[in-house]
């Protein structure tokens, strides 16, 4: 394993941690079925799936911008 490989592992761990922290904020203490985690029966109008969609949109959009940046730096 070299520096860049390790950096990728650490980045992936960071991204997963951000997902978990944000999603858990929507209902960490309200799991009724581990297969359906996370859920939030206390605040039904806030669906954790939508937080996931919003985060995914942000992540994909940022990846497109990162690829543009890489091309720019070539």
């Amino acid at each position, binding site marked *: 394993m070299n520096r860049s490989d390790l950096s990728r592992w650490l980045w992936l761990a960071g991204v997963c941690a951000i997902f978990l922290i944000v999603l858990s904020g929507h209902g960490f203490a309200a799991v009724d079925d581990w297969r359906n985690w996370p859920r939030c029966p206390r605040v039904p109008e806030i669906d954790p799936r939508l937080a996931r969609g*919003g985060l995914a949109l*942000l992540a994909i959009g940022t990846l497109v911008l990162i690829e543009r940046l890489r091309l*720019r730096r070539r």
Partner: protein
Amino acid sequence: MAASPTMLYRRLTRTSAQSSVRWRQLRSAALLVLLAAEVTALTLPFDASAVAASPTIWKHLLFEKAGDLRAVLITWSAATIFLTWPVVRDALLDTFRDPDPASWRRCRLWFVAHVMVLAPLIAGTALRGTPQLGEVEHPEIWLGAWLILAMLAVVTWCAAALPLQFWIRWVTRSPRAFPIGFAFGLATDIVANWLKALWSALAFSTLWASAALLSAVNRLAVYDPQNAVIGTSTFSVRVGLPCSGLEGISLVCGYFVLYLWICRREVRFPAALLLLPLGAAMAWILNAVRIAALVLLGSGNREIALRGFHSVAGWLFFNLVVLGMVSVSSRLSFLARTDQETERRVSRNPAGVYLVPLFAMITIAMLTKAFSADFDTYYPLHIIVGLGALSLYWNDLVRMRWVGSWPAVAIGAAVFGMWLALVPRDAGVDVAVATGLGALSRLGRMLWISSRLIGAIFVAPIVEELAFRGYLIRKLIASDFQSVMPGRFTWLSFLGSSLLFGILDGHWVAGTLAGGAFALALYRRGELSDAIAAHASANAVLAAYVIANHSWSLWA
């Protein structure tokens, strides 16, 4: 040619050293997973309401300040890792390659200590659910002991996951980063608390702007600044402090600060700093638009406004501001160091074909959700947008090899079986979709079900496989993803792409396993079309099952 004894010895010792490094990495990763499992298992049943009812200094410190403590700890950790990134990386590499096995052997002792601490911690956590805790005279003593055990568990876990040398190297090679990180965490919390004082002023101005927008369309009937209530004659809402827009403004500013730092060589200072006030202003304006739109929509359909639009609009507007402004500003020569030649080069973004269709599909899914309650009436739009996004890259797509194979179809069938076994039915969703379908005309029902079939069997497999098995799996191997041959295996790319696929899907366990299975289809021959065929096969059988059994929640 036969290898000489010296060469053989070197090869053997190198292989042994490599496997030792791999074993150590695997060990640390396993302990990371163990920690995540422990935190989840311990915090889910944690309920200290007995202590909360006790009027002591502990209650003040641990409950009223718990949010601040958590925020400071998270910001401190993130800032310290950010500041010491090269040190952490090099210290980790040095530790994994350390030829002395003694330090790693000592980790075993720390692991035993960790298990010994964990046992009373689990017992103490389980105790809170029993009536005995209610009879404890000083429940705060229980909480204090619990916290000490939790801290010991963290310390022993650290020493078990990585040898003490790593932690010592990290601290001694970057001694200033830890206090600076702590100061940053504390300052962020203080500023955040100070900004909360602005909430009421900002909420008032947001209310005023939303009222002005409703007046402009002659729909403002209720405007009560005293109670922060605004509405039409049939539907009104109270604008709470969290709806003032401050959180959105903070997130936008945070994103732009990171962007300006990472792209500091590409942007023009000081002009690029304009992004910060412009972004904050855009976030505030769009929040006022969101509230006015919520009121207008609620006047027509209360359920859609509260269960659809209210949940989605914030995320959509946030993404619109940050991604839109970065995208536009990077093309403007007074904000970014760019010219026509550069723009021509970056306009042919090779990642576009892999990522833009998924971006378009998620955007339209959130938009249609914003105008639906429990049943996504406008699903057919997903297909139009998905096919439209794919058609933008038609030339790239036709150049790919489109060959199917029976083993890929078999993998798809296995994924279907796994999906049925792991994904629970949701009777509420089944009823909601059945009711929604029942409300449609016969033609509308046929159109909706046909769209779902086209989406499940054709559009979603192509769009998702392009993003996960076409792009991400290679991006996790090299920054220049085009330099990686499709089908090249590494553990990081296999596990990472499967896990992120599972998280996006929602049914995270089944989704991760399905992502792994589709990756296996890709690895077999290095053909992306095999992963698409496996995905399409799984979805096709699932679609037949859903329609035959009216198990609509499996499509949710």
